[in-house]
């Protein structure tokens, strides 16, 4: 458990593009600049918000929010259809910038990545200088802003990047880490969602300092094996390496509900939101999966997963939603209340966007001209 303290300190940067999809749209379409816009589905399509501009966020609009709700909060909100090919391309350019500084890059999505710059390609000892250089390069080359967090592990770097957003840089030094985590409100912890945070509040856990009072055993008994993770991060510890070769095995989304869902129609509505998020990630990743798994956690913490596999890969949001609903109808315990639903695609098809190697060929089509010197 103390491993992270005995090893030489790492230098980790978390880079997060600011309101990425929305910023790309505002960059490319002058009319959107300074306006509240969201990228994603429209209320008519019963879509969800994939990204919201900072102007939209002032109205309380957040990603994953149903488009209908977003429009209620801001009637003059502009809905923009996503252009994933453009976002992917920009993302590639940003990753190319990272690659100038380090080979240890772990992309989390199109707009986020961890970088390990302990040993870097420009032999710059200061991770802060590298983070600034990267932010500078990104702005110069894409006219987009990014925020960066610098610290000694992924957990702290990720929290740091959120602090001075947008267009900011935040450093959590090793000697500040413990104090920083102690004062951090529990719902700001990455990996602790709204429902878990609410449960922690009930247990009197409001900050990192509160969390630190709990033993590992107690956390595990209250929260399951993720309790171990909570125990470590309460101490600012996170040994997870930056893994440039992380293999994605599934594409999924899940959500806890508080209060529990009771009616079938609530559940179907929730599933369609999840399907929307999964469908969006399928588009980001450019690959679907052959197996869809529905996860249901009942209010008594019983958990069931039910899968369906098919020869044709699932890709479209509508198909995922339909199959998810079918699985729900087939397997749901009608008596029980539901506290969590999840949908995940696995058996993923090979991703075309995954770096693809194409051996180029010579053009050997016969021509009229004979060989001549």
């Amino acid at each position: 458990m103390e491993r992270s303290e005995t090893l030489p300190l790492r230098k980790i940067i978390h880079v997060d593009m600011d309101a990425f999809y929305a910023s790309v749209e505002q960059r490319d379409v002058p009319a959107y600049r300074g306006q509240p816009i969201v990228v994603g589905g429209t209320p008519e399509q019963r879509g969800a918000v994939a990204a919201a501009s900072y102007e939209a966020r002032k109205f309380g609009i957040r990603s994953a929010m149903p488009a209908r709700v977003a429009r209620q909060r801001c009637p003059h909100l502009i809905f923009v259809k996503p252009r994933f090919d453009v976002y992917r391309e920009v993302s590639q350019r940003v990753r190319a910038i990272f690659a100038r500084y380090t080979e240890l890059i772990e992309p989390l999505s199109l707009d986020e990545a961890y970088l390990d710059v302990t040993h870097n390609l420009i032999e710059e000892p200061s991770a802060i200088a590298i983070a600034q250089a990267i932010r500078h390069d990104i702005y110069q080359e894409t006219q987009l802003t990014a925020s960066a967090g610098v610290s000694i592990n992924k957990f702290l770097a990720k929290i740091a990047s959120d602090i001075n957003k947008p267009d900011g840089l935040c450093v959590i030094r090793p000697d500040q880490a413990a104090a920083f985590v102690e004062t951090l409100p529990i719902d700001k912890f990455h990996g602790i969602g709204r429902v878990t945070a609410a449960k922690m509040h009930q247990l009197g856990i409001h900050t990192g300092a509160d969390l630190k009072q709990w033993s590992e055993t107690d956390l595990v008994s209250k929260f399951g094996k993720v309790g171990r993770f909570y125990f470590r991060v309460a101490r600012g510890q996170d040994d997870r390496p930056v893994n440039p070769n992380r293999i994605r095995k599934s594409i999924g989304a899940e959500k806890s509900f508080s209060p529990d869902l009771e009616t079938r129609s609530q559940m179907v509505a929730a599933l369609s939101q999840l399907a929307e998020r999964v469908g969006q990630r399928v588009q980001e990743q450019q690959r679907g999966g052959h197996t869809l798994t529905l996860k249901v956690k009942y209010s008594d913490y019983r958990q069931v997963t039910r899968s369906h596999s098919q020869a044709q890969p699932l890709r479209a949001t509508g198909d995922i939603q339909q199959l998810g609903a079918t699985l729900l109808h087939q397997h749901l315990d009608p008596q029980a209340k539901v506290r969590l639903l999840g949908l995940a695609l696995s058996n993923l098809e090979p991703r075309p966007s995954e770096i693809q190697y194409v051996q180029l060929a010579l053009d050997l089509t016969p021509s009229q001209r004979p060989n001549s010197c």
Partner: protein
Amino acid sequence: MKFVCPQSELNTHLSLVGRVVPARPSKPVLSNVLIKVDEEKQQVTLIGFDETMGIQTSFKATVEEPGELTLPAKLLESIIARLPSEDIAIQETQEDAAVTITSSSGKYEVRGLSAEDYPSLPVIEDGQAAELSIEALLEGLKGALFATSADESKQVLTGVHLMAEPEILEFAATDGHRLAVVRTSDESGDKDDSVAKMDVTVPAKALRDLERMLQTYTSSEPIALKFDRTQVIFELGDQRLTTRLLEGQYPNYRQLIPKQFERQVTIDRKLLMDALERIAVLADQKNNIVKLSLDSKQQSVAVSVEAQEVGSGREVVAAQISGDDLDIAFNVRYLLDGLKALGTNEVQLQCNTATSPSIFVPLGEVQMTYLVMPVQIRS
């Protein structure tokens, strides 16, 4: 038929001929080797033929009775190979088409078939002739054979294209991803203008056998070559290799080689090969892809591999670089094949972009151009 010869002599020549004897012949007699015994010349001639190519080879022996017979090639080869290294006697029996093989270890009888049914090797009556120096041929084969295609559906690419013009002999081979062109200046004796503008494509298989025959060819006499539109015959003293030519127009390969390059990298061939050999250990695990990163500021080339789920590697080799930095990826096997064949201490890589043809040329006397198409990294 009756002759006596050293076991080693018969063994060597049988294994040469055995290379063309087909495993699944169209008629039974073709799985045999034809043995012709000439009393006057005191010589034994062996012939193997698979209807596409044939090899004929002769050696001296003490001939007591002339004759002709065919014997099962693999069987005979296996028996002879295991006999003690000393003189052995082969004699036709009284019965039909069989021989006894006598050595100090014992006596074997092997049945064969009459020589009458064995087809004769093709001859060229009205073809053209040429003479090639052994050095030129070996140089050309070493530099081109490896680049031929193994894909039987691209017939004409499974061979090496030979083109002769006065004082020039050019070998070319391509599999569609890389192209090797070797130009040798052929100074083998006098040429009159009637001697051939040669423009033929010879199957790689035949040329591999020819290469072996050349390696054991001790005479300094040039190789005589006869060809027409469908056949070519190489004559090496007492040995002869005949093969059908590949049909179809050979690609106009010269126009595939760019005339100008924006980037030039001069690099020690051995150092680059050593680095690539090590990188290939990982690259071979995945997709054989190696990335070369030209760094003009550092005057170096970084050779790197990213084999997902397996590992990664990176080496840096000093080089003289002109032109802007560039990352370009290749199939590491293609690079190693070419670098092995290039044969000089230093080589030059010339390229334009990461997706256009690159060439390797030797710095030295060898006139070779090895063109490789890069691997495009799409993401």
